[in-house]
């Protein structure tokens, strides 16, 4: 399932840390293998990606998002 979401990029403190998109409607998506540019906090990012139903992670913070494109808005 492909989705587009706008939100902030945050590091979540599970294990040594994972990067997540917390969308404006409050939903948390775990970023799968994010590029270095998204491995830092951003206030507003637009992301398009596919939810990976067959992937499990150590963070367990929400659906896993395989990035297709992104745009840093601020």
């Amino acid at each position: 399932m492909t989705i587009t979401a706008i939100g902030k990029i945050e590091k979540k403190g599970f294990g040594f840390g994972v990067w997540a998109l917390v969308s404006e409607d409050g939903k948390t998506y775990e970023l799968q293998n994010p590029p270095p540019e998204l491995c830092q906090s951003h206030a507003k990012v637009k992301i398009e990606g596919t939810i990976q139903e067959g992937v499990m992670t150590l963070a367990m913070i929400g659906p896993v998002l395989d990035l297709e494109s992104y745009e840093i808005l601020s």
Partner: protein
Amino acid sequence: MKKLLFLVLFIVGIWLAVGYFVDTKGLANKGKFDSIIINFDNDLPTADISQELAIVSQSTKQNPSLNSIFSIDQHIYTVKGDKSLLHKLRTSPIKKYTEYIEPNYIYSALETANDPDYSKQWNFRSINVEKAWDNNHGEGITVAVIDTGVSRVPDLRDTDFVEGYDFVNDRLDASDDNGHGTHVAGTIAQSTNNNYGVAGIAYRAKIMPLKVLSAGGGGTVADIAEAIRFAADHGASVVNLSLGGGGESTVLKEAIDYAYSKGVAIVAAAGNENQNSASYPGRYPKVISVAALDATGNKAPYSNFGARVDISAPGGSEQGKEGKILQETLDPTTKKPVLVGFQGTSMAAPHVAGTVALIQSSQLQVAKQEAAKNPNAKIKAEDLKATEVSSPAEILDILKQSSRKVQDDSFNYYGAGQLNAGEAVTLAVQGKLSFKDFFRWLRDNGYLNPIFWFDGGAIAVLPKILMIVGSYLLAFLLRVYVPLQWGAPLNWGLIFGSSGLFFLQGFYIFDLPQWPFRIMGSSFPELGNSVQGSHLLNPFFASVLIPLGFLLLLLGNRSGKSFAVGITLGVASYLTVSAVFNPHLWLLGAGTVSQVFLGVNALFCIFLAWLATKGEQRLV
């Protein structure tokens, strides 16, 4: 005559109770001894003491000795001996020269660990692990850690490993390139009493490293399913899954069923989304799903809760100083070992997996002892395996029964309770298990259904039954004085007023909010507190007001009035039972004020029902 009979029965009852206490909980159960204390009377002359000591020496064929130099004035001597000598001395003529003759019980300190940072492992004390260590340390058990791999950091060097597999890169070497799996393995079996680092729960158990998550922390359900089957086929009796997410998967479910059928206990993290319902694979029926506690024993802020949470264990939290779970692992950036605190249900699950290893080890030990005694045993003692002597269902039952129960857990934050490793091992050794009630049966069978789940622990059944019985008793008594319209409306009124459809309070549908079921499962007096899941009754709802409202509204309708009278009597019963068992009201607190409030309102309700039905009598 009747009074005399009651008095005799009362005395016999007291005598039996005291006798039972002395036999089971009291003196006979205090512990081991291999010497006996003889305390001579303080005013007995020294010459007489010497004479008596000579007699003791003659009969025991040993010289009694002073317990210490401080015992001279106290006249306290000890002799080596057991129960039979104790009895002999107590029935001998020496007895009359003593203040007491009693066993010199041996007290031993609980086993602890010499690892220098063990003192920072608050989580181990909170699960009472030292008591479990008095029995075993996981000997003979293999725990599969299905994770990011496990690296042999210095504090895992004394821990035994068996061959694992790296399903991500398809190779035998299942080293860790993330740090998560090594941390998890540390909680289970960190090398302990090695004067280094920290301790592990079942530190004599073997670790089977199975890598299914990449350095980035993610992995496929196909790899996880294969790893579970590998564990079951290669001698693991416990599997730890500190991972989750994704949707339902047949391949994973079948792998879990396969391992379960081979006697493997599967433990999984409930997830870190702070949502109602455990995530997969914790959600599967045959998995022990673990929620996380912080250092204060409360729900960790991130932990999933509600549907399919079996038990809770320390997962730590970044809020508060040193509130995380400390283990040694590998820092993926420096590639060096590091003692680091992590948080998550990922950390809670291995506490349970380690405890399962301790339970299985104790059961294996007992089974081996029994097999060794029996020359006709089909399997030799040394060939027995953990999966042959304990079933995953029994393990779950032991974990739940031994857990520390949490009162007022309306949201099922804690499952059956907080993990208690010490009690779990004690219970496993005693082998005393019983299925308590219908609700457990219902809950266990609820697992067969992937849509809903039932939490039997949400309801205190006895007060609810008393409330229903009480309401019918009131209706019966009232019928003696005034005619009641006995029928469906009255019955429903009695039920909704007293207990409500209370079994619905523990009902969950995955991923849906649970409050509608709490409301549907509440009686009228509980409606004021059921939405927020509080056990504090709201004094506006737990009063005569609702029955009064119903009576005023429905007085003109025959069936409606009967329903309202039923509610009034039901509420009266509810308030009475609450006044006795749980007089705790919002704003009024717990105690006499609430008790009086509930009692007075119960009387008002009875009066109201009488008034309403009395009116009817006149009409008839």
